[in-house]
């Protein structure tokens, strides 16, 4: 798969991409969340 023979290396390659996609989706989904000085007060 993808020219990578070792299953562990293939998994590492895929996991790197999937983890980044997870972070990107999280960043987009939460883009306007968490907006709600209060602590200081």
């Amino acid at each position: 798969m993808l020219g990578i023979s070792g299953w562990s290396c293939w998994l590492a390659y895929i996991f790197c991409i999937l983890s980044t996609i997870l972070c990107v989706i999280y960043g987009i989904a939460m883009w306007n969340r968490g907006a709600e000085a209060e602590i200081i007060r």
Partner: protein
Amino acid sequence: MVWTIFGVIIYLLIIAYLGYRGWRVTATTADYLIAGREVHPYVMATSYGATFISTSAIIGFGGAASLFGMGILWLTWMNVFFGIFVAFVLFGKRTRRLGHVLDAHTFPELLGRRYQSTFIQGFSGIVIFLFMPIYAAAVLIGISRFIEVYLHIPYAVVLLAFSLILAMYVILGGLKGVMYTDAFQGTIMLITMVILLIYTYILAGGVISAHQSLTDMAYLVPEKLAKLGHRGWMEMPRLGSRYWWILISTITCGVGIGVLAQPQLVVRFMTVKRDRELNRAVLFGSIFILAMTGIAFTVGSLTNVIFYKAFGKISLAMAGGNIDKVIPLYIGKIMPSWFGTLFLLAMLAASMSTLSSQYHAGGTSLGRDFFEKGIGGEMIERGERTVFVTRLGIALSILLCIIFSLIFSPNMIAVATAIFFGLCGATFLPSFVFGLYWKGMTRAGAVTSILGGFIASMIWMGFFHAKEAHALGIAKHLFGRSTLAGFPWTVIDAQFIALPISFILAVMVSLFTGKLADKHIQKCWKYL
């Protein structure tokens, strides 16, 4: 060469301008120590990433990838998943809120105020101040040697000029100056690495063709490496072999977990105003880290394909057995000359962004945490002259780093980096994690965990883990042998031993010692 020097001058002028801007907008202690808690998410994420990634990550670990192959991508996964997602989502938001509630300006101050202990703040501060310059020296030696070879300038001249430029904008501009320049430097690094990946895949005939070529080269693994567990660049080393332990314990877990408790990175969480900025930073940070380590490791592995096609040799043979030379050789012999200039700027950016944060963290640890608020609190008038004392701390941190850089040999780069990462993980991680998530963690538990983790790390690195034990020579001096145990203990990273000890001490001692006052715990948990 003329274009290279022109590029470097333009780059340094932009750095000087951004450092000046940082100085202009620094008015308060909070501005100087935590950038006024109002940093843009792109600046925060890029600064976090650029601080995290130094020349050793690209040249050192890229070279290691040419030896170990694609299995080293497990470290990239750790960097993205733990270094970004877990760090920002699970630790970052709580760190930011707790930092606000406790009015903490540094990582040791956060721990000290969470456990109401000036000892924790002072001890953490002095550990960071003493060991940060060792890690910084590793980065400084790396970039100085690189420039020495590339621009033919004497090593000592590069080292001093580099330190002087950094001193100017770190001492004057504080964390605002550091983060503005980091964002610019991170952008240069990102563009350079993306070009490097695309060019390499094109040279190797496309993604799948490149991977297939590397897979098909397994028969070229030298006999000597095969005995150590090497099975080809698209396979993990043989389970339980020397190479497997080095790849899993030292490279993947040692760096992948150690990053979670790096003081110069944790303080970044306290520089933003709201959780929203951290949510957005997850997006920018993950792409940045994937582009840095993922590309460095992929290209490092694929240099074997390109070198074999061009010269009939694998990377290790091309570099004469020194893996630190693989990436510079690849840039010099394979990539076009214009890219050489861009890569030099990217390496300048990578090292300067890491060094500036190391100096800032080292300086604040001595000035703010040790002298002003911690152990040496009586030595100066409390609450006064924070910025002055911190600036003095940064200057001392830089001086210490220069001394180490002139004393250390080039082969100390990897050792110095491993010492700092291992030490931070085992010393600070349990107190940091439980401080954010466990109300039952006690002051005694935190103190025992910090001291236990520190001592266990030092003992393991001094007497058992071969890489540091050989370099330090303590065991050799005391017992006449460089390590006190045989394989596999000599290749198991200190964090594998010291971190569990530190966690166990934190839990066990906390279960049997007096809790912190309810009022203090309620205050800490008000926004967690």
